[in-house]
């Protein structure tokens, strides 16, 4: 029996997870499993609820990216009402969403990711956290980070009424608009945030790219996967987080498919393994082939890096510049170096800040036509947005009274379940050498593999099994002999 090392729980991410590493007799890694122990059952318990309540129920799938679920849900609900929606509401939703992205990316980069780079991957675990980062970079920068994130939260609160678990979207639009005095309050914050996004890029270049060991880790380390890439893009193949079509590109840059939300079941399916509650989405037309890389693989990543990998350009100028600089430094597009996701997040923040400026300067943004009263229920809708962690799909049906009859969700991080499992194993094999007992630093470097994905396992594990059905097949001399079933 192989010796088992358990990293439990994994830390500096959202949600529950653990890593089981099995060592062979020589002390090298025989196998490694990334397991998710949590589930709650949203897809089942939203049934029977009025469909307009779903956007404010599904935010509780995740408290770090509730707006992602709120928006995807609102879009699915829009579909159930025949897409009757006030045009101003679409602008307002996009505005809110960009502010939400900034808050989340700041929190991830500085609180969850930075400790590995600023404190060091094998530094003392007691201080390898956001407080350790503040201690190292100083209170001034620490204060600037807190302030920027607070501003992003404040913008959301002003625009949508709440930050975490907003209740703002409803059939026909949103429940409040922006008053002139509210826009005046937002005005200077938007510029400060833009400056902060540039500051963050510079910090990354100084601290991470300025350290040859980190650059080596990013470009040449085991944190790479040859799998396909997925992201939401507009008609120019530029990333759009709120709307568009889902584009899938292989890791050599060839487009595999580009689908509209209603077509998602033709393109993505979910595989189940018994050792984790989280399902494994894969490209349906290629079939499930197991946890394998390669040009024919049906595994894909949906992440900030994947979003930029599938894009042909960015929609705003400063983001375009940052995007070009990133890929020219990395030397490949699509880039498979998963640690580069930290960089991709910062590029996206620039795009978010530019979009906030655009909406702030839009003279129509303070209008009061932010809602219409819908007059028909059409009964089905699929809403797809890019959650910060990946492509998020909400699919609902409802009856003629607008009561939910079914829900299916494929959540951001879930898309990456297979990729995370595979790269964790790869990194474990590379880092744990026979003969040397793995230190906490080595184990942390294995954790850095999933951390780059900014995973959100509360999101991923929205669904819930109950008593486990059991199927037992007994073979006698190779032939099926008896079969028992319980609950299936």
């Amino acid at each position, binding site marked *: 029996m192989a010796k088992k090392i358990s990293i*439990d729980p994994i830390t500096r991410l959202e949600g*529950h997870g653990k890593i*089981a590493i099995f060592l062979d007799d020589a002390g090298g890694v025989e196998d490694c499993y990334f397991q998710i122990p949590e589930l709650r059952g949203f897809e089942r318990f939203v049934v029977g609820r*009025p469909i307009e309540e779903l956007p404010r129920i599904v935010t509780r799938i995740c408290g770090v990216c509730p707006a992602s679920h709120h928006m995807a849900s609102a879009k699915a609900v829009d579909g159930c009402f025949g897409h009757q929606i006030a045009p101003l509401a679409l602008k307002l939703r996009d505005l809110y969403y960009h502010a939400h992205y900034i808050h989340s990316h700041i929190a991830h980069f500085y609180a969850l990711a930075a400790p590995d780079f600023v404190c060091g991957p094998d530094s003392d675990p007691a201080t390898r956290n956001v407080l350790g980062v503040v201690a190292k970079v100083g209170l001034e920068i620490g204060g600037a980070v807190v302030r920027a994130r607070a501003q992003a939260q404040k913008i959301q609160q002003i625009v949508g009424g*709440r930050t975490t678990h907003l209740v703002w979207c409803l059939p026909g639009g949103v429940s409040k608009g922006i008053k002139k005095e509210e826009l005046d309050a937002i005005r200077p914050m938007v510029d400060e945030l833009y400056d902060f996004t540039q500051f963050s890029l510079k910090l990354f270049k100084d601290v991470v790219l300025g350290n040859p060991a980190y650059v080596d880790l990013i470009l040449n380390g085991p944190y790479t996967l040859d799998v396909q890439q997925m992201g939401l893009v507009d008609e120019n193949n530029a990333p759009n987080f709120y709307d568009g079509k889902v584009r899938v590109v292989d890791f050599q840059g060839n487009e595999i498919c580009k689908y509209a939300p209603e077509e998602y079941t033709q393109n993505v399916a979910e595989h189940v393994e018994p050792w984790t509650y989280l399902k494994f989405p894969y490209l349906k037309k290629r079939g499930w082939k197991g946890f394998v890389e390669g040009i024919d693989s049906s595994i894909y990543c949906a992440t900030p890096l994947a979003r930029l990998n599938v894009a042909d350009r960015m929609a705003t100028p400063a983001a375009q510049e940052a995007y070009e600089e990133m890929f020219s430094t990395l030397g490949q597009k699509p880039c498979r170096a998963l640690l580069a996701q930290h960089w991709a997040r910062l590029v996206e923040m620039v795009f978010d800040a530019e979009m906030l400026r655009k909406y702030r300067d839009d003279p129509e943004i303070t209008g009061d036509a932010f809602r219409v009263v*819908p007059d028909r229920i059409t009964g089905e809708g699929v809403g797809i947005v890019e959650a910060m962690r990946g492509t998020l799909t909400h699919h609902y049906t409802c009856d003629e009274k607008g009561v939910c009859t079914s829900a299916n969700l494929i959540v951001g991080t879930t898309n990456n379940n297979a990729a995370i499992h595979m790269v964790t194993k790869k990194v474990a094999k590379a880092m744990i050498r026979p003969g040397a007992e793995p230190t906490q630093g080595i184990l942390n470097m294995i954790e850095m593999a999933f951390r780059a994905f900014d995973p959100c396992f509360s999101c991923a594990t929205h669904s819930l099994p109950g008593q486990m059905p059991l199927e037992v097949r007994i073979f006698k001399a190779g032939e099926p002999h008896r079969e028992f079933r319980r*609950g299936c």
Partner: protein
Amino acid sequence: MPEKKLQIALYWGAACGGCDVAVLDTNEFVIGVGFLVDIRLWPIAADGKYRDVEAMADGELDCTLFHGAIRNSENEHLAKLLRRKSKVLVALGSCAHLGGIPGLANQVTKQEILERVYLDNPSIEAGNRVVPLPSTRVDAGELEIPRFYRRVYRLDDVVPVDYYVPGCPPAPEQVKAALQALVNGTLPPARSVIGASNRTVCDDCRRRKEEKKVTRFHRPWEILQDPDRCLMEQGILCAGSATRSGCGVRCPDSGMPCRGCYGPAPNVIDQGAKFVSAVSSIVDSKDPREIERILGDIPDILGYAYRFGLPASLLQRSIR
């Protein structure tokens, strides 16, 4: 001689992490507090592991803030472990306090959920018969995941709790006040609700209240509402009159009704029963058939009455 730092843990059961974000939303305050305490476990932000907690002496932690409901065997195990290791245990947020949104699963059976997630949905791999199991044998060894319970529990159902900070999530100002009291040693008597007032959301709501007589209930999207008038008076269901205040009335201020996340008002033992009473009391009719018609506009009364607190209701879960 510097005082020994407070030893703190922040942990989650079946949670979304929103309460952690509420802690972070105290902004510079939490950074300040961070330098006054040792955070021994906080999976979202720090690297403490379960074995570090197991190695602690009983009562070594001055305080654990626990958010999230109890959904599986791991949640229960950690709740009990942290209870032993902590002098003070705080149920942070609606899920730990009342069961929360995950508590809505108490209305359905585990078999129904199992089927929907792994066997019968539009995107599941064709012909899949595999479901996750608490224990799986693979070539290299044994893999374990927690056992799912047939229902959701509150934190209080599995361990004695010292304080409750309600809300989904609790308002950052309230989290700040609770943390401040902890650091200063000025916590109120045990088993109190902290971070909430003794009034209802309705009491604190700024909207104009005239007369509550309703002949028709509306879903929030069915009418353009008057943003300055009581929602119930406009026929839009709002749980504010049956909900404890402390949130700042953030939902009605956003233009949407309250759904009760701060839980029942003081001394109320079943929030949903009070909600049923409140809604029924504004029906403007004495004719039984007309009353039925007016109330017939309301779908999913259980979901409105117990959106955040089904496990905390007297009946706790469906008997199906």
